[in-house]
């Protein structure tokens, strides 16, 4: 049974009963009761009503990755799509009741490039694919055939640097905003006069931390226009610090929300990459301390995996969602865990919180989840939030996308 906020009270009551059984009312017992009351207030300070509902399964035939799913509108109906861009190489679309509507093969695109970075599903007959590490865009139709190709590479030599573009790693998000494409940029080729590894890394990060983060491609059907911007995300980091992470951004009502695991702030931008607001995230249950624990580049030689271990054990912002039905934002944070934990218990099973904000970014509540039961990957629909069950959940079935419906009212 997953740990939900209301169950915490049971634990405290259990311990209090033990003290009473032992007999004497003592100052210690009083202290325990006081702490209990304070703890309960903290767990339940929200007025939101959190309810668990039924399990919903989609027979995808593959393990649905959180990176490649979402919803589209087809006439008046909402469809859900899931994609496996590596092993089964297809996109499958379902009705909300779980009926399989269509499968779009991805083999043709994958014959061109080994890996797909992300997909935008526009309709049952139109999908836009970004090939990873390649700067190539393919438009495919409902049978998987390529109908158009755009080579972005010539536009990515900027100020003497060569860049690669990446989509967002957030669930239910992609790189298509209206008729434009917006990508995060990464340095593809970098040369340094210093040949030692540490000096090279120093020069690399010194450059990276001040480069523009975004590039927008507009006017795609004619002569393409590009615009870059937003260099604040890593600008405060010193060049001797080593960070490694994907790009986390989401479009909401013609604004761009950007986050990084290394900060406790979410940036809100307009579509020309001007910063409109910064939203500080605070959890009642964990420190967001990854940014305070960034490794120095000289430590990488001792243990190349150390930055990953820190990202798996320090508290950090993880996911960001917008609930258009209830006009709310959801932010998930991974809780800080012991660095000595086994990989499974730090990388996959760590607890996390769902933080609920109103549309002015006022915090409405926070709910704790057990990482062994649920992943922080959601689909948001009119009748609730569908949270993906973990492969360590007893109800898990291979080759299905399984979600538990929750309502927070």
């Amino acid at each position: 049974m997953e740990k939900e906020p209301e169950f915490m009270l049971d634990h405290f009551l259990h311990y209090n009963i033990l003290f009473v059984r032992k007999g004497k009312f003592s100052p210690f017992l009083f202290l325990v009761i006081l702490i209990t009351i304070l703890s309960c207030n903290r767990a339940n300070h929200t007025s939101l009503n959190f309810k668990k509902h039924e399990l919903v399964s989609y027979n995808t035939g593959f393990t649905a990755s959180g990176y490649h799913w979402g919803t589209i509108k087809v006439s008046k109906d909402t469809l859900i799509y899931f994609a496996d861009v590596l092993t089964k190489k297809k996109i499958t679309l379902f009705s909300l009741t779980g009926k399989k509507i269509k499968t779009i093969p991805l083999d043709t695109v994958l014959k061109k490039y080994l890996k797909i970075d992300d997909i935008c599903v526009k309709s049952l007959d139109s999908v836009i694919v970004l090939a990873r590490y390649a700067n190539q865009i393919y438009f495919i139709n409902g049978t998987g055939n390529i109908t158009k190709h755009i080579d972005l590479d010539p536009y990515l030599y900027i100020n003497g640097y060569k860049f690669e573009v990446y989509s967002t790693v957030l669930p239910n998000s992609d790189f298509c905003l209206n008729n434009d494409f917006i990508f995060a940029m990464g340095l593809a080729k970098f040369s340094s006069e210093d040949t030692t590894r540490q000096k090279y890394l120093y020069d690399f990060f010194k450059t990276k931390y001040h480069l523009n983060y975004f590039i927008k491609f507009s006017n795609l059907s004619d002569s393409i226009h590009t615009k870059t911007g937003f260099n604040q995300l890593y600008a405060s980091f010193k060049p001797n610090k080593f960070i490694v992470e994907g790009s986390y951004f989401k479009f909401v009502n013609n604004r761009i929300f950007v986050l990084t695991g290394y900060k406790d702030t979410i940036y809100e931008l307009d579509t020309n990459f001007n910063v409109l607001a910064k939203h500080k995230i605070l959890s009642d249950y964990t420190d967001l301390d990854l940014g305070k624990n960034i490794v120095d580049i000289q430590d990488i030689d001792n243990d190349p995996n150390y930055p990953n271990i820190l990202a798996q054990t320090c508290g950090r912002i993880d996911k960001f969602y917008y609930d258009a039905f209830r006009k709310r934002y959801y932010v998930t944070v991974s809780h800080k865990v012991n660095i000595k934990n086994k990989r499974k218990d730090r990388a996959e099973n760590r607890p996390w919180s769902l933080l609920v904000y109103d549309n002015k970014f006022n915090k409405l509540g926070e709910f704790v989840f057990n990482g062994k039961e649920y992943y922080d990957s959601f689909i948001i629909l009119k009748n609730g939030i569908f949270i993906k069950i973990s492969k360590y959940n007893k109800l898990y079935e291979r080759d299905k996308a399984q979600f538990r419906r929750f309502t927070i009212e």
Partner: protein
Amino acid sequence: MKETKHSLGDLPLNNIFFLIVLFFFVVSCSQNDETQRIKDYFADTYHYTIKPNQMIIILSDNGCYHCNRTFSENEIKYIRNKKVIFLITADENHLDLSHYLNKENVFFDDKKILSDYGIDDNSGFIEIKNNKIDTIVHIQYDKVLDQITFLDKTINNL
């Protein structure tokens, strides 16, 4: 009290002999223990009995993506080799596993139960020789091609 320090050279010869025997006994026990754990894992999880001479190739999505992909692509050639079994802890959305689906000598460990038996579940291989673990190798990002060559030679001599 006067402090005395002993070096190995100060010990009588029979004590040194005892220490050497103890060392090999401990090493041998830990290898045997690990062999037993890997046998138990396959028996408990898949009702499969490890053969006296066998190569176990582990495909994981932990750590370096390029290393895991290079390793996985190179080992496809052993998919029909009866001396080799594959243990896949990787998620099919993180690694192209299409060549490994529905094969007799491939075992999937979605829940990474292997690590519960105290066995490292990173990509690599475990050679069982004469009913004991002979070699364990985990893929390292700066050595992956050499390690693949070493694995090829080991499988040929198995």
